[in-house]
């Protein structure tokens, strides 16, 4: 049953990936310029342009070209974009990790001490942060921690940081910015899950056994709140990525998002389409990983 489910999810993920790739590939062909003419150079005659077009396979049917492009992507393009992908993946991983911790904490406070000052302040702050553009949150952090207090650098890490320590220092502000943009939605899902599990039988049993309230929360409530949080995190990956693009740009990081912007503004459409495919792959694989994690974490689900 589980293998069937995994197989189906792999199939779905692959289908989405191919759809994303095909859309990106089609865009490459809609582009308002002739690749062959550019490759042949400004002085080339029409015959030479036609020769170049034949050499790079422009005359082949579109599906054949698509398969060839996929092959090129897998053999070379992905390798080139992998260097770009690392900072983005680090930012995503650390940011969502921090957001999970904050969301668990906030959701826990909201259920444990409802209507307290802490609850109200934290909840309304999370709501405000949720509505603000990510670059505005990032800027406020830069303004106070980098310009005013001079505690942290105003940029993200470079591709070759001189030390681990330096990398970490440069990573703090981008990661915090990314986490802040998403804690509102994530803590809402944590709160709902915590409220639900507090009403459940296993919590009543645990309390009846005499487990301390702290133990009940740590072992029974928070663990079960993690499950819906994983789903929420997986689903909000695309919107997280929207913010990653703005954050990379704001903090001048060399990631996938800023790479896409750079290649688009410098008319390097080939690289742009490769990057689009990699970004699509990251989000599709991310939600796939979230599904798998859920599957590992909750043995009760029914698989279809």
């Amino acid at each position: 049953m589980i293998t069937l489910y995994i197989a189906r999810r792999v199939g779905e993920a692959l289908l989405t990936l191919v759809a994303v790739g095909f859309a990106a590939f089609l865009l490459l062909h809609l582009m308002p310029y002739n690749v062959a003419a550019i490759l042949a150079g400004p002085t080339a005659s029409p015959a030479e342009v036609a020769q170049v077009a034949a050499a790079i396979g422009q005359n082949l049917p579109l599906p054949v070209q698509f398969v060839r492009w996929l092959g090129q992507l897998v053999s070379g393009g992905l390798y080139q974009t992998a260097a770009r992908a690392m900072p983005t993946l680090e930012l995503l991983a650390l940011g969502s990790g921090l957001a999970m911790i904050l969301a668990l904490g906030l959701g826990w406070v909201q259920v444990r001490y409802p209507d307290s000052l802490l609850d109200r302040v934290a909840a309304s702050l999370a709501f405000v942060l949720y509505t603000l553009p990510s670059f505005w949150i990032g800027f406020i952090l830069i303004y106070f921690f980098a310009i005013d207090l001079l505690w942290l650098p105003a940029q993200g890490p470079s591709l070759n940081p001189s030390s681990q320590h330096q990398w970490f220092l440069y990573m703090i502000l981008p990661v915090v910015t990314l986490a802040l943009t998403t804690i509102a939605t994530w803590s809402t899902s944590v709160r709902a899950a915590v409220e639900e599990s507090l009403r459940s039988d296993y919590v009543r049993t645990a309390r009846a056994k005499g487990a301390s309230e702290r133990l009940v929360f740590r072992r029974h409530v928070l663990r079960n709140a993690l499950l819906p949080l994983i789903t929420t995190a997986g689903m909000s990956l695309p919107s997280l990525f929207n913010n990653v693009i703005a954050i990379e740009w704001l903090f001048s990081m060399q990631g996938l998002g800023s790479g896409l912007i750079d290649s688009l503004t410098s008319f390097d459409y080939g690289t742009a389409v490769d990057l689009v495919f990699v970004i699509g792959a990251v989000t599709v694989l991310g939600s796939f990983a979230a599904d798998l994690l859920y599957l590992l974490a909750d043995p009760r689900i029914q698989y279809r």
Partner: protein
Amino acid sequence: MPVGPFGCRAMVGPELPLSCNIEVFRVCLGDRTPCPAMEVLVTLPLSKARVGLAEERQIRGRTGRTVRHLIRHPLFWLGGGMLCFLLAFSFLGPLLFSYRAGETAIDVAQQFLPPSPSHLLGTNVLGQDELAQMMIGGQAPIITGFVATFVAALLGIAIGLVSGFAGDVGDSFLMRLTDIFLSIPQVVPILLLDALFQASTEVLVIVVALTSWPAMARIVRARTLALRHLPFMEAAHASGAKGLRLLLRHLVPNMLDDIILATTSLFANVVLIMAITTFVGLGLPPPWNWATMFAANLAGVFGGQWWTVFPPGIAFAILLLSVSYLGEALRQALNPQQAREVRQ
């Protein structure tokens, strides 16, 4: 107008005498809030009768309750006030202060003046008055936000309705399409298309709308599936409502609350997405708007010119917060029970 036995009215076709056969349907609108089943008169022959008025009454009664809850909600007034302020600031402001001509002129001698009585928000690197720029800079994000939201909402409603009615194959195809759209970071296709077709406002609005509909389509589809087999829909169908009329007069009014709620979050999302694309250098074309002002003045902050960046950021915050507050107020007005539970 004939009055039924339970006090509610049924509209009878003009050519039908009241004395003809009358059947009583029990109709419950079947929305989230439990409502008492209501008696609706249907005159036979069914194909000529209309049940419209009675169920519309019920909808109107619920709408009235929602509106009453809404206007008592402080967040509604806070959000509405903030939005009205921004609209007045961006569209009346330039007229009142006749800023457009003079004050945004480039005058490098006036560069980086801090806020003062003559320049309330100071000046930027080119000596342009920040306040005047702020006023005109709000027009593009607000207008494009409303237009793109409108188009995306229509698209989403249409696709959701089709998907809800299409049945097996069509539904799963449309939902797969929705899933694919939802699994791609929206900014990426927008950046790509915007760069390809030379950034213009029209292209941006169309592309943003084309990538924003999935959330709305999902909600409308879910509500359609929940509502389409309820008695009132069958009654409407039996009484001769068909096609578009059945959808627009009978189905859509019953999910209007969800649609409006989804539209507020759609607006916030659209504005946010356009702000991000514009901030990174593509997106909305010149003349300036809040996002380009924010991006262009960023470097100046390191030189101490904080007044050039905070106003556009705060303006974005007010715009997005106002719509979110309106949506939150509407959500709580629609589910007063739930809102009370949450507060407890």
